[in-house]
């Protein structure tokens, strides 16, 4: 329990949607008007959590209506999620080529995959991309969020850092490709003037993936920074005051208070970044097409080429399944490592 600075009643530390001006992190607080809820805010807040008491007769009428209302969602789920998932698993054991019906080939595709050098290379390229994205992306987002939180309340600034997130990957890829152009790109011209050397970036085997990762970090940084920012707003300021009283420096408070308290959010940001990064496709498709010499041939690009250039759907499905399994494993491992479900706030 903590005494809030507003009024003199105590509230639990957990941000309650009712707290006026609380961070806009819960749907409810996000959606209340500035002046709070229509009248009787305090009392309502208690009632709002209760389930509606309804007469038995009303309840009996609910089932047919409910079935009608959930019908589109259930159809969409079955037709475009559940069935495709199982069909994808099934197809990965076949030699499906779209035009002819699939034949069961058992583990043939898996055997092909294990011996496929291009697959291993694309897996490595993807992991390299994921590592770069996660390390730089999370670091920059975290620092940006903390600095924003400490020095300004401007929602305009928060809006500005979100801009790249709103444009499509295709546009992000195009403008960066132009800026990284070997002869006319502004970045290479600046490099040339500063160091006397220019870098091929997207056209070089060493730089293709770092360049694609930079584009991706640029595009997603604002989004993740705002997620972390939302997490920061749930930390009660009294914790920092206590730290201040104990004579902690800004850096110590960051290390000992902010980071541990943010653990669930940071874990989530890392997991989201990993899931996104493993599926990178459009930036590569627009800038390098997987080149030069497979240097940026990420897994998703390789799967796409197998399926739509060579029509080898069975094999493409097998690789998708491998990617799926990899994502599930990585996600669970990360959540276990981060102990994401425990927050020191409780």
């Amino acid at each position, binding site marked *: 329990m903590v005494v809030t600075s507003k009024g003199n009643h105590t509230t639990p530390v957990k941000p309650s949607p009712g707290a006026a001006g609380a961070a806009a992190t819960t749907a409810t607080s996000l959606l209340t008007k500035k002046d709070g809820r229509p009248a009787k805010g305090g009392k309502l807040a208690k009632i709002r959590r209760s389930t509606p008491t309804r007469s038995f007769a009303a309840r009996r009428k609910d089932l047919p209506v409910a079935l009608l209302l959930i019908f589109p969602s259930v159809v969409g789920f079955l*037709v475009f999620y559940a069935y495709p998932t199982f069909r994808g698993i099934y197809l990965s054991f076949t030699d499906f080529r779209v035009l002819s019906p699939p034949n069961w080939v058992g583990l043939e595709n898996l055997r092909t995959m294990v011996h496929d050098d291009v697959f291993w290379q694309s897996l490595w390229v993807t992991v390299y991309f994921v590592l770069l994205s996660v390390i730089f992306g999370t670091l920059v987002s975290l620092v940006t969020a903390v600095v924003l939180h400490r020095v300004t309340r401007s929602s305009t600034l928060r809006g500005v850092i979100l801009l790249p997130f709103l444009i499509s990957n295709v546009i992000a890829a195009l403008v960066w490709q132009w800026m990284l152009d070997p002869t006319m790109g502004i970045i290479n011209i600046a490099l040339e003037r500063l160091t006397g050397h220019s870098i091929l970036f997207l056209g070089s085997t060493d730089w293709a993936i770092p360049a694609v990762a930079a584009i991706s970090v640029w595009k997603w940084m604002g989004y993740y920074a705002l997620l972390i920012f939302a997490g920061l707003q749930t930390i009660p300021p009294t914790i920092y005051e206590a730290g201040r009283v104990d004579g902690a420096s800004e850096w110590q408070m960051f290390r000992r208070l902010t980071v541990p308290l943010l653990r669930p959010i940071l874990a989530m940001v890392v997991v989201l970044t990993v899931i996104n990064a493993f599926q990178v496709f459009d930036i590569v498709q627009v800038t390098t097409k997987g080149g030069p010499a497979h240097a940026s041939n990420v897994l998703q690009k390789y799967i796409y080429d197998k399926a739509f250039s060579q029509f080898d759907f069975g094999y493409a499905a097998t690789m998708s399944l491998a990617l799926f399994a990899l994502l599930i494993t990585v996600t669970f491992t990360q959540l276990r490592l981060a102990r994401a479900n425990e927050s020191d706030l409780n």
Partner: protein
Amino acid sequence: MALTLAPTRNGQRPGSPSRSRKVSPGRIAAWTYLAVVMAVTLFPFYWILRTALSNNYLLATDPSSPLPVGFTWGAFERALGLASAAEAQAQGGSGASLDIALFLRNSLIYATSQTLLIVLFSAAGAYAFSRLHWRGRNLVFSILITALMVPTVFTLLPNFVMIKDLGLLNSFAGLVLPGGLFQAFTLFFLRQFMLGLSSEVEEAAIIDGAGPLRIFFRIILPMSSAPLATVSLLMFVNAWNDYFWPLLVTSSQDVQPLTLGLGVFKQSSPQAAPDWAGLMAAALIAALPILLLFLAFGKRIVNSIGFSGLK
């Protein structure tokens, strides 16, 4: 970083540490960092604009000029297909023009119809999963939410086969259906909100003899207007920027959205140097609707970002 914190004053907004207005090295460092981040964030947008207003022919003569080189609207004319082939080539464009109006129309149809469908269906589902009482409600909801576990990438190929089997390749129906009927996030987001609504108005309506459908349309939907707007914005932005799915299921320009159109435009320059000015103009036109939406509803979008991760 050495900020000095004053003790809390009353009226301090919870969630932000109190600050003194003293200028300290820490503050300077923080603002410098922010300035750099903002510059890196915004520079590409400026560069799009600067390039789009340049003469593509003259770009090579002064590639580092901060201002447009040989200022002209030609690139926009080329992107919009208003320039004649001769004019375009005189400015270093390719003879190819991009039928951007058609692509814009397609993007608009795709994004709008998908947004309307998914928001309506998710709202209906969310209402059934939050305000109505029926046996198996939570079990069915849990099953639907497992869709969050399946990466989109995994269902892309089987869904392509499904759309092909249904004969919906190269149609708006094929584009919209997979994302228009059900998305776990929107259902979850809206249900979460509706669970927190007060039941007083609802109970009064029941006493007056209103049925569940009437309550949904007359009471719950109007009460949920804010989250509905938020979800609509996010869904529209997603559909507008979608690339992979349209790439799989569309091949004719009659249904291809702008994201694919930009790629077409890029490959249509036969000569070695692409028409960068024209490309940037097209990119700007493609991003414009989203940027306008952002100007209008920026705060709502910014504040919605925090929700997705927090209970």
